[in-house]
């Protein structure tokens, strides 16, 4: 292909104004469901963009400023203001945004994607260059199948869009877990695939177990001791 086209197929540094739209959308998704005083603010943004289907795929690196938390009903211990380093993948297709990936961590411990080549190599949906045509169409049809299979109903169009971006993000998370598993397990779409990690933990898991302050039980004799 002539150099220009090949160049387009590769990611290129995106100008700041170009990044603002996708970055603001990613921030909106990040803050979703949070009370006004609890929302993170956007700090620095840089990123790359490449052509994807009928639109563009933005790979953003952004810092988010989390507000301090002194409300014990929200955070068990007071938390001072903290800065997060986030990686977002935002697909901008025909003016519609979709958050495909969100990976945030404290600035000091965040492993940048560049060093996580092994991971990015297993995310075929997002790493074919150029992205498969109509990526979001594909994702939409997979999500539709999920909704049918698990009989999901969402109250509003916004909720359905939000759940689809969560679903899409979870597809990527499942692929990462798959890549790092040393057994024969298969990970992918389950009935929990439209829940964020926080929702899943809050609803279905039981962190009390790690405190394990329960009554001390006597130790059973080993069977061979009998």
């Amino acid at each position, binding site marked *: 292909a002539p150099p220009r086209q090949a160049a387009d197929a590769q990611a290129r540094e995106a100008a700041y104004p170009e990044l603002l739209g996708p970055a603001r959308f990613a921030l909106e998704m990040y803050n979703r469901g949070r009370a006004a005083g609890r929302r993170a603010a956007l700090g620095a943004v840089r990123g790359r963009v490449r052509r994807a289907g009928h639109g563009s795929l933005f790979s953003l690196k952004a810092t988010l400023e989390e507000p301090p938390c002194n409300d014990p009903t929200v955070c068990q211990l007071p938390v001072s203001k903290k800065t997060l380093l986030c990686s977002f993948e935002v697909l901008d297709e025909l003016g519609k945004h979709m958050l495909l990936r969100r990976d945030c961590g404290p600035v000091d411990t965040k492993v940048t994607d560049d060093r996580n080549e092994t991971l990015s190599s297993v995310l075929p949906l997002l790493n074919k260059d150029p992205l498969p045509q109509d990526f979001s169409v594909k994702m939409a049809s997979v999500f539709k199948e999920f909704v049918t299979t*698990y009989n999901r109903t969402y109250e509003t169009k916004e909720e359905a869009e939000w759940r689809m971006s969560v679903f899409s993000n*979870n597809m990527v*998370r*499942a692929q990462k*877990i798959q890549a*790092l*598993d*040393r*057994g*024969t*397990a*298969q*990970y*992918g*779409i*389950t*009935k*929990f*695939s439209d*829940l964020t*990690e926080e929702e*899943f*933990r*809050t*609803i*279905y*898991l*039981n*962190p*009390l*177990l*790690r405190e*394990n*302050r*329960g*009554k*001390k*039980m*006597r*130790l*059973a004799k*080993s*069977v*061979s001791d*009998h």
Partner: protein
Amino acid sequence: APPPEWDWRSKGAVTKVKDQGMCGSCWAFSVTGNVEGQWFLKEGTLLSLSEQELLDCDKVDKACLGGLPSNAYTAIMTLGGLETEDDYSYQGHLQACSFSAKKARVYINDSVELSQNEQKLAAWLAKKGPISVAINAFGMQFYRHGISHPLRPLCSPWLIDHAVLLVGYGNRSGIPFWAIKNSWGTDWGEEGYYYLHRGSGACGVNTMASSAVVN
């Protein structure tokens, strides 16, 4: 040494997979599953027991916000036993306690903590019945089938957040596994079951093993 494989499901000691719904009550399902097995081994009858009784009447634990098996065993002894699922059916949220000692169908006399040695756990399971354990649920949100064996740092034994029931063990294509009964319904995992690598302390499976005792 324990038998090379064991499965209490094929011996009638395990009730059907249940569904805790949108409630963090895994601790209650893990304990009732263990007591069901202990009662079966002692009395020869398999009864499906009530988790709702533990949610409503175990005042030490926190119903849908979580609990500890060790507290639940104590609550069962204090209350005077467990009613059946039919008599005290699962609602998936906290209600006023309506336990009736007259309706209790099983009792326990004690509870024990088991070895953290997986070889000894397998031997104990094969002899004494299904075991209540607690694990780190890393990756289970997206688990579909096969033997899970996450990297240790990703599935730290220090971040335990789910209680389940060991019902058997064996090898698949040479990979040792624990057969684990979960409480997320049969439309999750392998018809409600989770298979976890055995012998490497995967996800802390060996750290909180316990059982009720029925004399």
